[in-house]
């Protein structure tokens, strides 16, 4: 038998529900609504920061506005360095589609073997890996066209150096972050590099910018920098230097071309050099800006200063006679010698024949202090005030420590050291009527204001001697050019090997030449140095002077300087009738 309950007749229904129970429910619900309302007020009015921020994170973006790095221009406004867009390719390894065909294409575009690409994508823990930085823009577009998942691009800029290795040491280069590492790029990094700006925008679902919010910080582009360098002169100087270094099987070489009027550096080249865009296998030897960082004993290049000082002090005239005897002179036990016995020479002849004994005899009539003052005024032992990294001061010891023999050797350039650049600049004393002028890497319009070191008359007399030294009977005859009168002094030295200068047959040399042209009113100063020529010839007059000659010839032609000497014309007048 089954028991059933008749709900309709439940005894519970019979009892009356107390009123307070329904009131309690109503109150509870009202309280809950009050709670909701309170919460809503709290979220929307009182503490809305958090939620507003969260919202903004989802649709507001800060976009970086990259600043362009300034260009480096030569004196005629030609580009020496400029930034161009070069996308960098990166990937999230775990997101990358393992599509063999397209990955092979990608590897080909990235110019790397597929195995290398796979190796980079192997590490799935990483959420970011560079595949290749700074590829060409066209390559970037092709990669984008592959539409490979997990492979992205970042917009970056790459420095481009059209002049390549010819101007590498002047311009220098930047690293992958666009920060200057060498040369002008380093020296003027602050001016060239701009300040990037930013803007805050609201993007819609499709990633389109729909509104600007807040203030926009405009990017400040880097300034363009106009150098004093003339890219054509630079190229000629580099080309002729390279030819000479290769011809003489030398280790290295440098050339400096200065404008004798404004003190501007027209060219500064070193060999070996490098291509600034391709720096994978760069060696220290290539990187070295020898013209500025390497110092050596200036040797005979100093003789004009000693003679100039003697002239200035009225001790001699250009035609005073100096007895160099058999070409040997002993001072406190040490012997100075000339390569030939020159007998009695005029002061001019001392420079022309490059007599060590004659110069030392002149030095013996002077105080060490006087020589030291002249040398320092000419910039020796002083760091050149040039905006260039790594410029060295060379060595010039204080005169109080000079012994007599040192004073004698210093008069012809041994016992002190200087860079090729310092030597070139010191010759502005002779070219600029006795004034040493500051050298500059930046283009300047007005003639330089210099410091008077010698009188214009003495400077003129020395110029004449320099001309003789580069003329018949002088040591630097190979410096002659067609049409332009030149003057200059060559130098040759044994290089130190360990403690000594090496034994005969095992010696290393350095040959150099510093000169100017046209000699009456010099327009350019050119200094050339060839390090360790090993093909038989090693005298500065033989290895460096020919480079000087060619560089002067081309530079003056490009500057539009009219020849000051008569030349035998080789123009073959061809009187052909023009057809009408």
């Amino acid at each position, binding site marked *: 038998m089954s028991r059933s309950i008749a709900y309709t007749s439940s005894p519970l229904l019979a009892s009356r529900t107390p009123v307070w129970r329904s009131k309690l429910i109503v109150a509870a619900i009202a309280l809950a609504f009050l709670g909701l309302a309170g919460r809503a007020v709290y979220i929307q009015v009182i503490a809305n920061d958090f939620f507003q921020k969260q919202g903004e994170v989802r649709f507001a973006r800060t976009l970086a506005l990259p600043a362009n790095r300034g260009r480096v221009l030569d004196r005629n406004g030609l580009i020496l360095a400029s*930034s*161009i867009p070069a996308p960098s390719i990166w990937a999230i390894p775990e997101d990358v589609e393992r599509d063999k065909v397209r990955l092979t294409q990608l590897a080909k575009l990235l110019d790397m073997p597929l195995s290398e690409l796979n190796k980079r994508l192997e590490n799935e823990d990483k959420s970011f890996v560079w595949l290749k930085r700074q590829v060409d823009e066209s390559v970037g577009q092709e990669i984008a066209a592959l539409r490979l998942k997990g492979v992205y691009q970042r917009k970056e800029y790459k420095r481009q150096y059209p*002049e390549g290795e010819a101007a590498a040491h002047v311009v220098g280069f930047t690293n992958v972050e666009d920060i200057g590492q060498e040369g002008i790029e380093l020296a003027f990094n602050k001016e060239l590099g701009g300040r990037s700006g930013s803007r805050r925008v609201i993007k819609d679902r499709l990633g389109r910018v729909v509104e600007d919010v807040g203030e926009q910080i405009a990017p400040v582009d880097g300034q363009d920098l106009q150098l004093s360098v003339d890219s054509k002169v630079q190229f*000629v100087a580099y080309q002729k230097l390279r030819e000479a270094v290769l011809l003489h099987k030398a280790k290295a070489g440098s050339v400096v071309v200065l404008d004798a009027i404004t003190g501007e550096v027209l060219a500064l080249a070193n060999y070996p050099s490098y291509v600034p865009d391709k720096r994978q296998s760069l060696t220290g030897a290539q990187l070295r800006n020898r013209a500025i960082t390497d110092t050596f004993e200036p040797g005979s290049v100093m003789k004009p200063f000693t003679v100039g000082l003697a002239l200035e002090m009225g001790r001699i005239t250009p035609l005073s006679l100096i007895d160099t005897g058999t070409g040997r002179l002993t001072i406190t036990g040490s012997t100075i010698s000339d390569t030939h016995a020159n007998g009695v020479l005029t002061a001019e002849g001392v420079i022309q024949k490059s007599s060590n004994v004659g110069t030392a005899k002149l030095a013996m009539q002077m105080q060490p202090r006087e020589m030291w003052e002249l040398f320092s005024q000419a910039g020796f032992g002083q760091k050149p005030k040039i905006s260039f990294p790594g410029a060295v001061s060379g060595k010039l010891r204080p005169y109080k420590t000079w012994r007599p023999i040192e004073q004698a050797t210093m008069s012809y350039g041994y016992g002190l050291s200087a860079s090729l650049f310092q030597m070139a600049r010191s010759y502005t004393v002779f070219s600029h009527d006795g004034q040493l002028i500051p050298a500059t890497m930046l283009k300047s319009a007005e003639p330089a204001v210099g410091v008077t070191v010698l009188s214009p008359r003495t400077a003129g007399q020395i110029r004449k001697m320099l001309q003789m030294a580069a003329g018949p009977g002088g040591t630097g005859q190979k410096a002659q050019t067609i049409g332009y009168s030149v003057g200059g002094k060559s130098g040759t030295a044994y290089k130190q090997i360990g403690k000594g200068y090496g034994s005969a047959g095992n010696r290393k040399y350095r040959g150099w030449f510093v000169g100017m042209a046209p000699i009456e009113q010099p327009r350019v100063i050119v200094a050339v140095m060839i390090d360790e020529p090993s093909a038989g010839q090693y005298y500065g007059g033989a290895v460096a002077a020919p480079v000087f000659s060619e560089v002067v010839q081309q530079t003056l032609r490009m500057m539009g300087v009219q*020849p000051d000497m008569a*030349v035998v*014309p080789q*123009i073959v*007048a061809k009187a052909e009738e023009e057809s009408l």
Partner: protein
Amino acid sequence: MIRINLMLLLAVLASALYLVNVQYESRRLYTELDRARAESRRLETDKERLQVEKRAQATPARVERLAKLRLQMRTTTPAITHYMGDVPGALPMVAGGMP
């Protein structure tokens, strides 16, 4: 009274809809402007890139190589240069060939 209220309600609705429309339009135009700006920047960098490329094609190294190899030219010297005086009628400084 009700009529005025109804009219005001309609006016509010109309203006609200118009506001939505204007907002939409302004965002669309802004997107367009932004795209145009990006395009102008891209063209600017393109110009820069092409300038560098042009310059790379005209470096002294390349010009000289082409002049020497393809055009068989050679470097001038004062010996084969005829210099003209600055003053009209003045004699040239350096004797040359026939003018």
